[in-house]
């Protein structure tokens, strides 16, 4: 089967600093895949290379088998690549419903309409409400985002990306900044996502990673250290060394 997302020899250099180093990575269709690594391992840079925010120094990015290396961010979204942000990137003064509708409106080609009044596109509201119900936040649809607690804002962050009907979804630390009591709620929301979406998650919260992912890739200093099932990764001595350090020999 065609991989949902693939990189071949992907590299990014800032001057002499290699932030992403020859990464060959494959995301299987329908995968629940996690990308972990210590601080500064280049996880966010990797995500930015995937989404088109950054252009690689060399290498290739393929989205569902199609060459995407030289496409910009919005073109990649049109190919089915959605993302969430590590730090909330929302429309703070708008309602939750409008936050989600904006993305749907772009996907349906409605956002080009200059003359017809926005409230006549009732499909936007229906689709938005479906997504909010799926994530269990339909009750806050009409609230302004800036007045919401952070945990709920994190869910809005995911809701916006779902509005794009992505085939591939990149979750950049979905539980970042959420108190540990509430991270269960995020996990519940993630579990509810349609199974045909291929998901790559970056996360620091290891509990969340091990509950969510069926495959884990460990990134260290911009390069892939190892890859495997959660059990394999948990046992791998190299991973322990990176995370916990080993006494000097």
């Amino acid at each position, binding site marked *: 089967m065609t991989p949902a997302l693939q990189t071949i020899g992907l590299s990014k250099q800032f001057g002499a600093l290699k932030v992403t180093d020859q990464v060959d990575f494959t995301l299987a269709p329908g995968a629940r895949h996690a990308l972990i690594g210590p601080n500064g391992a280049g996880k966010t840079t990797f995500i930015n290379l995937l*989404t088109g925010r950054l252009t690689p120094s060399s290498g290739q990015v393929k989205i569902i088998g199609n060459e995407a290396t030289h496409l910009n*961010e*919005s073109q990649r*979204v*049109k190919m089915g690549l959605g*993302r969430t*942000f590590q730090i909330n*990137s*929302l*429309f*703070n*003064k*708008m*309602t939750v*419903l*409008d936050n989600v*509708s*904006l*993305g749907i*409106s*772009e*996907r349906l080609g*409605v*956002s*080009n*309409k*200059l*003359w*017809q*009044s*926005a*409230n006549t*596109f009732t499909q*936007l*509201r229906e689709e938005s409400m479906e997504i909010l119900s799926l994530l269990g936040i339909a009750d806050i649809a*009409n609230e*302004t985002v800036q007045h919401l607690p952070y945990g709920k804002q994190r869910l809005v962050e995911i809701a*916006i*990306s779902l*509005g*794009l009907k992505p085939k591939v979804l990149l979750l950049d630390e979905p539980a970042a900044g959420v108190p540990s009591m509430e991270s269960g709620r995020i996990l519940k929301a993630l579990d509810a996502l349609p199974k045909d979406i291929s998901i790559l998650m970056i996360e620091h919260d290891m509990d969340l990673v091990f509950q969510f992912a069926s495959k884990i890739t460990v990134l260290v200093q911009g390069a892939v250290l190892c890859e495997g099932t959660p059990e394999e990764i948990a046992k791998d001595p190299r991973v322990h060394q990176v995370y916990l350090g080993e006494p000097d020999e």
Partner: protein
Amino acid sequence: MSKLIGFQTQPRIRKYELLPWILAIVVFFVLPEYLSLGAQILTYILFALSLDLITGYAGIVTLGHAAFFGVGAYTCGILSAKFGITDPIILLFVSAIVCALLGFSTGLVILRTQKLTQLMLTLAIAALCFEVANKATTITGGADGLTGVVISPILGMFKFDFLNKTAYLWCLLILFIFWYVIRRLIYSPFGIALTGIKENKQRMQAIGVPVTSFLLKAYTFAAMVAGVAGALITQTNQFVGLNVIGFEPSGEILVMLILGGVGRMYGAFIGPLVFLVAQDYLAKQFPEYWNLGIGLMLLIVVMFAKGGILGVIDKFFVKRSLQK
């Protein structure tokens, strides 16, 4: 703070939105000696409205919007004075096209940048336009201004009279048309997308919106509207001076918009009205110090009235509805 327009907002025209038009018609009958000032105010409202669309809604910072106002005014003036094209509708039309083209081509450059860089670039473009108008004296009249502008009657029927009755109604009609168009635009999905870009450009890109191309559309349209406003001022005054182009009027229109309230459409109505009436009054009472009065007024608004005059009115009504 009034709510942003969203996908659920009802677009029906509210009663208070009729106020400006009723007022404008009352003024026509009650204050015939002020129609010259009135026509000028209507033109500046149109100019401010075009600025509000790109600054208030789309979040483009500009200190050079009068480049379009000025080029519109000069296009109209030069075509009439040097080429003998005197039909007011054709003149509006050509000025609109010229300014749309100018907006599109400069927009290609400035919309790639942000914040201070963007501000500087818009300023530079306005300054360039000013220098051209200043130095190309054979066609623009330079610092002496462009004289010999003749405007034919509208549709061959309505002559521009020296009491400015025709000019006033003409400006009112054009303003009304563009008010309606801009209002439609603001309530459309495109308008909401512009607000989205102002709120969070990064996220708009991440949901697949070609941000620069959206901004370019809005910028081109706003440039066109500013050009129409410029052409109107030429038709009213039958003269073009350097005061319509460059940094000074660009700053002035921004001040008027801030005075009225940014990003709420009717701020563009109130700002020019208050500013120009105050200027007219102060200039008569204190010919030497009128600028001081304007300065004080601005200081008060900036210090005590966040959101401009409309912001204060909003607060007043919110308070009253809370007391009830």
